C-alpha cells in the first residue's frame, strides 16, 4: 500500500464523518461482521492468552514465593498489551483481510469505477462505514478480551498455583488503582483502549486503501489481501511500542 494514499484516505474519512447517519445500514452490517462474527475468536484467544501469561509468569513468581501477585500482573499485561495487540491481530487477519479482498474484487471487476462514473462518493459509500465500525468494535472486543484473559489467568492461578479465586480477583483489581494524571481513569485500562482504537482505525484504513488499489484480477486481489494484513500487523507492532511509551508517560 502507498503510505501517502493511506494518510490521504484517513483525512477523507474524517471529513465525511457527518455522512455516517446516511450510511447507517452498511455501518450496522460492518459492526456485526467486525463485532459479533469475531467475538468468539477474540474471547477464546483472550482466555488462552490469559492462561499462558498466568502459567509462565506464575511459575517464575512461585520460585520466589510471590505467586499471590499473579492477578495484578495478568490484568496489567492483558489490559495494556496483550488484549489490544491480540485483538488487533485477529481483526487484521479476519476483518481487515475481508475488507481488502472485498474492495479489491470490486476494483478489479470495475464496480469501483462504476460507482465513480455514477458520481457515487466511494469513500463515503464504502470506506467510511467500514473504518468507523472497526474503530468502534476494536476497543469493545479488547475490553472483553481483558476480562476473559484475567478470568483465564484466574483458572491457572487456582488450578496450578494453588491460590484462591477471591484473592486472585482482589489482586487483579488493584491494577485499576493507578489513576492517570492527565486522564482520570485507570492507566492500564485507558492506555489499552486508546491503543485498540488506533489499531482498529489503522487496520481499516490500510485494508481499504489496499483494496482500492488492487489490480491484475484474482491474483492481484490475493496479493492485495496479503499486503493489507502484512502492513496492518507491521503498523500495529510499531505503533504499539510508540503508543505504549507515550501513554505510560
Amino acid at each position, binding site marked *: 500500500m502507498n503510505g501517502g494514499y493511506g494518510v490521504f484516505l484517513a483525512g477523507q474519512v474524517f471529513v465525511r464523518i457527518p455522512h455516517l447517519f446516511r450510511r447507517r445500514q452498511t455501518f450496522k452490517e460492518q459492526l456485526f461482521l467486525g463485532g459479533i462474527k469475531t467475538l468468539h475468536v477474540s474471547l477464546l484467544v483472550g482466555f488462552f492468552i490469559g492462561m499462558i501469561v498466568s502459567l509462565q509468569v506464575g511459575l517464575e513468581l512461585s520460585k520466589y514465593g510471590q505467586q499471590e501477585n499473579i492477578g495484578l500482573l495478568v490484568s496489567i499485561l492483558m489490559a495494556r498489551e496483550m488484549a489490544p495487540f491480540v485483538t488487533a491481530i485477529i481483526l487484521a487477519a479476519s476483518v481487515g483481510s475481508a475488507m481488502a479482498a472485498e474492495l479489491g474484487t*470490486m476494483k478489479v*471487476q*470495475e*464496480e469501483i*469505477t*462504476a*460507482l*465513480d*462514473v*455514477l*458520481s*457515487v*462518493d466511494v469513500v463515503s*459509500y464504502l470506506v467510511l462505514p467500514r473504518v468507523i465500525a472497526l474503530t468502534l468494535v476494536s476497543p469493545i472486543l479488547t475490553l472483553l478480551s481483558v476480562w476473559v484473559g484475567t478470568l483465564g489467568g484466574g483458572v491457572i492461578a487456582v488450578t496450578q498455583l494453588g491460590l484462591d479465586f477471591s484473592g486472585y480477583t482482589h489482586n487483579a483489581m488493584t491494577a485499576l488503582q493507578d489513576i492517570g494524571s492527565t486522564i482520570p481513569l485507570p492507566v492500564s485500562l485507558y492506555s489499552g483502549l486508546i491503543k485498540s482504537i488506533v489499531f482498529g482505525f489503522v487496520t481499516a484504513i490500510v485494508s481499504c486503501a489496499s483494496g482500492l488499489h488492487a489490480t491484475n484480477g484474482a491474483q492481484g486481489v490475493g496479493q492485495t489481501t496479503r499486503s493489507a494484513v502484512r502492513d496492518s500487523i507491521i503498523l500495529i507492532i510499531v505503533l504499539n511500542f510508540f503508543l505504549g511509551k507515550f501513554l505510560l508517560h
Partner: protein
Amino acid sequence: MGPSGAGKSVILKHIIGLLKPDAGDVWVQGKSVPDLTPDELRGLRRNMGYLFQHAALINWLSVFENVALPLKETRELSPSQIQDKVEHVLKLVRMEGDLQKYPAELSGGMQKRVGLARALVTDPRIILYDEPEAGLDPEMSTSVSRMIRRLRDELHTTSITVTHSWACAQLIADRVALFEKGALVTEAPLDAFLSDPHPRVSEFLGQSK
C-alpha cells in the same frame, strides 16, 4: 470499431474522465474534460450514462437497488419517485419482473440489461456503451443491440458504442469510426463506411464477418 488493443475502450474512458490524455484534449458539451475539477466532472457525469463491458453491477445489491443507487446518491428524490423511475427504466429494458434478484442470479445478458437500466435511470444526454455484445451468445448479442437502437430512438440520446462486431455496428450505428493502434483510421456514415477505400476497412470487415 477496431481490433482488440486498438484503444476503443480507452477513448470512452477519456470521454467520461476516468483517464487523462498524455497529450491533446477531450471536449464534451463544450468543456475540456481533463481540465475539469472533481466537482465539475461529477456534474458532467450526471449527464452521461456508461454501460460497462461486464455490466459492473454491485454484487450485494438487488436489481432494484443497483438501478436506484445513482438516484439515491446523487438526486434528491422521494422514495416513491425513485420507485417509479426505477420501475420505468427496468420496463424499458424488459427486466421489470426481476426487481429483487441479485446479479449472481442473472445471466450475462440480463446483467447487461440491468447495467443499461442503471445507465438510463438518471436521464443522461449521452450514453457510452463499452462492448455491449461482449460475452453474449449471438442471439443475446443481437437482442441487446436492438435494445440499444430502440432506446436511442425512444429517448433521443447521443450514443457512442465501442464494438469489434460488425453485426452490432450495423444494427445500432449511424456513423462508424475505425481505430487501430490508438489512432483513427477512418470515420464515415454507416453506408459510406462500407465503400471506404482505405485498405484496413475491407480487411477489418472481412475478419469481422
